[in-house]
């Protein structure tokens, strides 16, 4: 074969190159112009979908699939448990190194469920994707509505403090928002009271241990001061003051039978030298009073034993049921 010693760029006239470059630049600019013009004229930022039958939104789909796969489970106390982030590792270790799996205590037995490539992918999305983060946040919000414990008090001169709460040793976050139904119920008696302090977020633990509300004030009480409290939940214990009077409160009437009570009004007398008060309350589950805990702007709701993801935030009557209390300087 005759050797051909070099690459061969065919001699092109310069005008041809100039023409090609001009066309290239014009095409690039023209394509961008077309795209930008389409974006500027269409009615919304996102283009109309080219897919003929659009699937459900990614978060709704993920929620449904995670429920079906057992990665989200409805618990006995009404809350939803989320599969732990290290579930793939737990499953792998259950087969390879069973002696290196931490013994299970109160939580669900996650290892026993079905596990395949699809569930593994769902688990990954649930824990490490934006849609998964959103679904877990919605689960948190739903869980926060499944238990209720709150306290409110009428301050007396010389006793000033801030309520704190813990649950099985974990400090809890308190908020001033309350369901309007409850707020209306107790409004007449509490017009000059301090704002509500309600547990805003519940740790994802099982079991129904009492919440400890604590009030601490800097100067010791001189003795004989009387404090009035309203406690939402099933009261179990008061320490730091002597209980003088107590009444049950229900949703329907100001006073009611003990079994129907959702709250309790207390009058306490402080001992001389007391610098704090602790009230222990069992949180109320949501099924104690249906409709009592509203869905708010959350996506998840429960219908019977089914959990449903609401595609759109349809205006529900309950959504107006929350009222934000102004937090005073004492709070």
């Amino acid at each position, binding site marked *: 074969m005759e050797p051909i010693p070099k690459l061969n760029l065919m001699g092109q006239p310069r005008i041809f190159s100039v023409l090609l470059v001009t066309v290239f630049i014009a095409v690039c600019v023209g394509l961008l112009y077309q795209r930008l013009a389409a974006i500027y004229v269409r009615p919304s930022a996102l283009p109309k*979908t080219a897919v003929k039958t659009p699937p459900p939104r990614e978060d709704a789909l993920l929620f449904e699939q995670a429920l079906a796969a057992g990665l989200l489970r409805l618990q006995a106390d009404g809350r939803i448990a989320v599969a732990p982030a290290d579930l793939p590792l737990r499953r792998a270790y259950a087969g390879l190194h069973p002696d290196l799996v931490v013994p299970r205590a109160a939580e669900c037995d996650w290892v026993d469920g079905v596990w395949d490539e699809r569930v593994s992918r769902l688990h990954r999305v649930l824990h490490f994707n934006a849609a998964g983060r959103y679904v877990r946040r919605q689960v948190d919000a739903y869980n926060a509505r499944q238990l209720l414990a709150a306290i409110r008090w009428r301050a007396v001169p010389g006793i000033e403090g801030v309520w704190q709460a813990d649950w099985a040793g974990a400090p809890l976050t308190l908020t001033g928002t309350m369901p309007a139904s409850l707020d209306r119920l107790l409004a007449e008696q509490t017009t000059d009271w301090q704002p509500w302090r309600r547990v805003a977020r519940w740790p994802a633990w099982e079991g129904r241990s009492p919440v400890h509300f604590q009030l601490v004030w800097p100067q010791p009480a001189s003795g004989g001061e009387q404090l009035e409290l309203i406690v939402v939940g099933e009261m179990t214990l008061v320490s730091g003051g002597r209980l003088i009077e107590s009444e049950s409160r229900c949703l329907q009437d100001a006073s009611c039978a003990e079994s129907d009570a959702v709250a309790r009004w207390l009058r306490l007398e402080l001992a001389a030298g007391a610098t704090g008060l602790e009230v222990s309350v069992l949180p109320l589950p949501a099924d104690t009073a249906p409709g009592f805990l509203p869905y708010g702007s959350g996506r998840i709701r429960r219908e019977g034993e089914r959990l449903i993801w609401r595609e759109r935030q349809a205006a529900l009557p309950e959504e107006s049921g929350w009222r934000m209390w102004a937090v005073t300087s004492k709070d």
Partner: protein
Amino acid sequence: MVIPPLAVKAKSLIRWIALDGRWGLFALWFLPVLGILWTAGGSPNWLELRLLRVTLAPGQALTLGRDTLQAPQADSEQLLLRRDMTGSWLLRNLSAGSPVWWRPAYEAQSRPIRQWPLTAGTSFTVGAHTVAVLAAEKNRLILRQGGWLWQYNGWHLQRDDRFLPECRQGWRDRLRGWLATVGLSLGLTRRPLRLGGGVYCADRLGLVDIPIDTAEIQPTGMGFSLRLGGAGQPDGPPVTVATGTAAAVPLWRHSVPLTAGDGLAVGRTQYRVLEAGSALLLAPVARVQRHLVGVQLPALPPTVSVAWGGPAWLWPAEPWVSMQRFGWMVALLFGVVGLCYWRRLVLRASERIAIGLALGSLCLGLYVQVLVVPILWPYLITWPALLVWLHTVRSRWSLGLLAVLALLLGGGLMALLQLGAGVEESGWHRYGSSAAALAGAFGWLSWAGWHGRRYWLPPPGWLTERRFSWILGGLCAGSLGLLVTQVVVGDEGGWAGWQPFEFSQLVLVAAAARALTLRGRSPVHGWSYQRAVPWLHYLGPLGLLGAVCSFIFLFLRDFSPFMLLLFWGLALIWAYLRVHPLPLWRWFGQIAVISLACAFVWGLAWLQTRPETLSLDFQMDRIRVWAAPEQYPHAGYQLRRALEAIRAGGWTGTVWSEPANGRAMAVPVVESDFAPAFFLNRYGGLAGLILAGLQAMLVALLILIADRALGRDWPGGYRPGMFGGFAYFTLCSGAALLGAHFLISWGTNLGFLPVMGQPMSLLSAAGSHLVLFVLPIIALAVAAEEKNHDTDSH
């Protein structure tokens, strides 16, 4: 010696600056200068915190929040500052989500406030689990928990003398383990021990009913420290330190003492403690909140007073502190200016080398201290580098290329300056400043290298085929080493702030160009098994390509680099076929490549209508989002925000009417992948069309220069290292990859491609891409063209 009058000096200076009468070229160079000055001059009148003074009596405490600290990432109640009865200042972080880092004076490393050093004989609890510390020394920690004895050496956990297996049995951990066994741990023999979760393994100590990463034990220089983990929550399982003693305290409420000289970081805002006596003085160092002049400033507690000032555009806020920090830079700059004045800009080669090295190192210094240098310094040092290069080059093609570069780079720097100038946090300036400083460092150092080439270039004849192969082999090995280092030490975002992948692209381009050049020199063309065909030489780039693809697939798990390489591969095949000596190969080959590209475009359009037909798991989410973005409000969040910003900008942009950036800042990664959305929002669609035209011109110029380099090939003595076929293929590859970057970036921002994750060259803040890929390719084009010019002249 005759001293020229001032007018003569001024005339010669003006003539030099005006590129010896080429006013058009000078205007192109000067246009970005005007743009940058206009951006700085037109920026909103911001007020920034200069000094924060807190006065407390012993025993008093004060809560500081976002408004007082002027820290954008801080919570409304972020810090609890108190003085104990001895007058010492103590600091506690109140926030659940926003971390606070503390660097004690005379220490180099920062640490979270919620950190507790482990010492032998102490214990701590996580939830209901008590962990006793039996020994805590460097690389040796012994704990007792759950009836077992746990030993941790900073890398591997043992339970009762039994080494536990690696938690994840992935290839990355196996690679790390193997490197550690052969003594190449790259400093990676230390990792935190994570507490919580459901298993016991090499770096996890599981605890019943405790979520994983509730707390972690971090190896430190002296021993080990307990920290809150990523899943630690204030209302989660409590973590209490020093249990069983009077000093027991939840880690969430752990306090640290403050003394003069300490450093603090609240979110991303940094402070230095100037004084911690009767009053506490905090001076912000970087990334503080800004307020418009005339807008009501936030109310402060009576015990807090603040001093305000404007942004440091040209002069440092604290002259004395700055003189200590930047003194050497100022001295270097004055030295360079003095030398130029003394020599009346007629410089010897050695002086040019010295100036290039001095200003290059100055730019690197600016890059290192980019958060604290005055905003305009990097721009002012960098832009003259382009002017001296315009003076240096002689070919018209080089001048044209550098002029287009000036417009593109200048436009990009102007946009990045606007990004920092129009936002309510001072830290955004770092993107533009670091890009300018890196470009300046490359420009000045390459200028020094150009004038010093007689000293460092090997003599003619030294660069033989064999030596060139060895050099390329070394570069391939180096780039692979960097990729492995990123896998082992870094993460998907890079390693130590750099992206080794960009360097690998450059080496891949060079290796492929070398192989194709050899193929071009082969006496046999077309498909052949003859021995004369240098098949073995093709294995190098193919091997590197395989390694790079594996890196992308296994580590980055990103689709966009594949798109880059696909585009590059097609372009390279086209570049080879269009110069093929056999007409059959030339014409049919080109037609085949163009048909393939058209088929690819058609396939994409088809896929958009039927995303479900592709059953691949890899990147399916991205494809689904691209096909139906309204169904993916979370995965498609970036695109939706970008399109909203682009629509808000319209054809003319918002920069003319709104000095502040406004809603454009809501676009995620607006400084990098979504910089085009920012550009279109602020400067409008018309400016975007000009930008696209300039980008197309840059790509076209690179291809034309590549053609010219090939046309000058084989004048007699073959120089494989620099010119001819090698330059042709390298420049074609570079142009293809640049074009692919432009295309993918426009596609990401406008939503017409199912990929994401690539910056737009010369517009986005992407230092590695700029100095490890874009500028070297342009430098090679200039070098090739200057060589052509020399050949013409001779």
